[in-house]
């Protein structure tokens, strides 16, 4: 799928192949208007959605690759050999026996619950959550929460979702948001009614009989006035993808006084291009928090943003990136202040291991007519090996005499003294290194839900293996 590159990295890891010819719903390879029409047709969508897709497709064709600032590696994506749609129920499946031992091992070491393993390994198309979560589902319905896929959302609840769909992130935002808008399928559409505060986080795999993860998933979450929701996507277990391009669009809408917390933990196999557009709109006194952990992939480009549209809105991005051999984590945050007394906070930590490269790219904008706006940005990078690389490229535009921003970034390596100290106490070098890295990201990991943070720590241990000595 991807043109050969000269970097000697095992990109076949986790690159499972399945014969796809036998499936009834197959849009073929490559992208054309017909493919877009076909997808829309299979989904029995209304005309306005088809128009939306076609328009996005023409924008995609016109937009150049953003290589004037982003990595040239993007040029290695060959859009003509990608399969843009495989229908639900036609997804490839495999048996548990076919899952390689090292993956089973990873599950074991991460402590993934037995029930979830088969789903994560792709043995079962759906996570059998009926038993575990049916109570929760009932509860949600009682409260009036809508939790569906994009097809159902736009078909059954257009009065709620149509208003915001494609508004926070217009198709023309960038080349990959246009691509997603043209061929999206899968994802979650959520509506939380006014004043409803969800006690439990929602996760995509709670949903039954729907497409969960997709190559081009589309998520729209609307928290009505005073509502509160935490949403979790992904998991620490490695995801084994048949596709090498993943391009999602996630839009969040927090109306007056609402709170949204969106947690992502992703661990892609290292042949995947993960090019995701995520943005939130925060109304008066609303609060949006992106908590983002990126591990794996060949190239991740992801800059969650918050448009602070109402007075006293607050936006936050907490991000952890781990780049190992052959991986480039190009992540960051965008904070667009558009109302008085808005505040934003960005804390990004990255770890580069081996020949890994991590980049922080940020944007902070405060126009001059605003008063009392504040931003704080902190980026810390840790370099493990001498071939590791890190970059920081923030862009800050501030006008007016009543706003303040601060940006701080630092790069450091593991302190030899501390490693020595730990070795003295009987840890071997690798263990000491793991402990050090865990300590480096610890204050962010604490923000994750408990079971995630436990898994994350174990995952870091795994990633650190073989990086020293």
């Amino acid at each position: 799928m991807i043109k050969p590159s000269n970097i000697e990295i095992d990109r076949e890891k986790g690159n499972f192949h399945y014969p796809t010819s036998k499936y009834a719903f197959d849009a073929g390879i490559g992208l054309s208007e017909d493919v877009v029409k076909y997808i829309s047709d299979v989904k029995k969508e209304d005309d306005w959605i088809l128009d939306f897709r076609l328009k996005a497709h023409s924008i995609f064709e016109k937009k150049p690759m953003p290589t004037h600032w982003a990595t040239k590696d993007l040029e290695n994506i060959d859009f003509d050999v990608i399969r843009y749609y495989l229908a639900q129920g036609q997804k490839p499946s495999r048996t548990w026996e076919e899952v390689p031992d090292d993956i089973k091992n990873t599950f074991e070491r991460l402590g993934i619950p037995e029930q979830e393993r088969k789903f994560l390994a792709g043995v079962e198309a759906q996570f059998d959550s009926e038993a575990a979560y049916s109570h929760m589902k009932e509860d949600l319905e009682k409260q009036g929460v809508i939790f569906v896929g994009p097809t159902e959302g736009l078909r059954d609840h257009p009065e709620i979702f149509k208003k915001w769909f494609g508004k926070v992130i217009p198709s023309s935002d960038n080349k990959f948001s246009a691509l997603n808008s043209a061929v999206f399928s899968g994802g979650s559409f959520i509506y939380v009614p006014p004043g409803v505060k969800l006690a439990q986080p929602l996760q995509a795999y709670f949903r039954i009989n729907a497409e969960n993860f997709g190559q081009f998933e589309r998520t729209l979450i609307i928290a009505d006035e005073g509502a509160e929701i935490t949403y979790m996507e992904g998991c620490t277990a490695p995801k084994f993808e048949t596709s090498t391009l993943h391009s999602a669009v996630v839009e969040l809408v927090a109306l007056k006084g609402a709170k949204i917390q969106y947690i992502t933990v992703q661990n892609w196999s290292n042949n995947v291009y993960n090019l995701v557009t995520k943005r939130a709109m925060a109304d008066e006194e609303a609060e949006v928090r992106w908590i983002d952990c990126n591990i794996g992939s060949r190239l991740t480009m992801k800059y969650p943003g918050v448009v602070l549209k109402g007075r006293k809105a607050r936006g936050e991005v907490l991000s952890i990136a781990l780049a190992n051999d052959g991986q480039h984590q190009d992540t960051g945050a965008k904070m667009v202040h558009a109302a008085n007394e808005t505040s934003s906070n960005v804390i990004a930590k990255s770890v580069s291991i081996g020949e890994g490269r991590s980049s922080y790219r940020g944007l902070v904008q405060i126009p001059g007519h605003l008063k009392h706006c504040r931003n704080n940005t902190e980026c810390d990078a840790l370099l493990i090996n001498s071939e590791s690389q890190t970059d920081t490229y923030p862009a800050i535009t501030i006008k007016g005499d009543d706003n303040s921003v601060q940006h701080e970034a630092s790069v450091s390596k593991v302190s030899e003294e501390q490693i020595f100290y730990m070795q003295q106490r009987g840890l071997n070098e690798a263990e000491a290194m793991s402990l050090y890295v865990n300590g480096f990201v610890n204050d962010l990991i604490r923000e994750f839900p408990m079971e995630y943070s436990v898994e994350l720590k174990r995952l870091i241990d795994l990633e650190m293996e073989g990086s020293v000595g």
Partner: protein
Amino acid sequence: MVSTPSHSKHMDSQFLTPDFFESFSAKRSWEPGWLADFRKDSWDKFLSLPVKKNKDERWRFSPRARLGFSNFDQLAESPKPSILNGQKIDGILFDTLDQTILNAPSNLLDLPNMQGPNLGADDTFLLGCCFSESGVFLKSEKGIIEKKPFKHCHFAPKNNQSLFQTNIISLEPFSELTIIEIFESEDMDTGGTLSNLSHVKLAEGAKLNRILIQKVNQLSTFNHLESIQLGRNSEFTNISLQLGGAQSRSESKGVIAGEGASFNNFSLSLGNGEQLFDQRTVQHHISPHGKSNLLYKNALLDESKSIFSGLIKVDPIAQNTDAYQTNRNLLLSANAEADSLPGLEILANEVKCSHGATTSKIDNQELFYLLSRGIHRNVAEKLIVLGFFDEIIREAGTQENIELLRDEISHHFN
């Protein structure tokens, strides 16, 4: 990349007609052949520059229309000559560029190989290589140490004319010098464009202190492109005070080329009216054990605007590097704007690198304190700005230099 052989993109500026270069080189036919070749070569490179792309990261946030060479109208016909002020000392050559070409051209043989900072203003750099008519040459022999500063003063031309100049400063091993560079305008009623290319080269253990004061009038444009090569254990300390110019673009690149070199780059800008300060910097470490420290402070009044874009680049070989980069902006009016693009590209792991950028307003309590003691608002603001700038001013070394900088800043406020 598309390159165009046509001259159409340059034609809007009347001074850049195709035969313009011929008449210029005829005027300077007295120069040695290699220099004429260098000028011609630069002119050809300029003509074959790729068409301006819409989005060039090196020009991010910059209102390019205010800075491009399309604003160059014609070359200054009889520019006011630079004034040089320094005592004659054995082992130090200090002269105008023209005199050096005439009397000691062998010192300049390396000129065609000298690189610019290459931070965006390719056109200005090539035109500078092609049309430089003034500038200074300063060279000190091995081991010469001179405390008394060498001063030179240059003038931005009048009547919308353009002047290009090249300064070359070269210190042989273990010599130490101080240099004060001043940029002014020929007259106060009309403006022009002064484009200055500086090449600084420090050999092993050399030390250079440089103070740069830019106070061209507010009808003028100032371009300053400098690249600094630091040899083993050498030390360069720069303090730039940017006060003038309707718009200015400064590109400064320091290459830590020798082990253990130390590069301090400090800049102060004070903007009012609609002044624009476009600042691009690079600290490039290509040798181990180097140190670099950059601090750019901008105080902005009225509708002035600053753009700071900095990059610390550490090559894989440059282990044990300490590199810092800080940009602090003080906004004194609701319509002032500060853009910050601090950047890091770190390819070595045994490093200490950090950058910071802050933008804020005057502390109301500080202001209130001064106002309540009967100090007029303007004066209070001036005092606060002087305080904001003080940590850099103090780096100027002698009391005399410190006073010089303070006076210039106070004067600008009045």
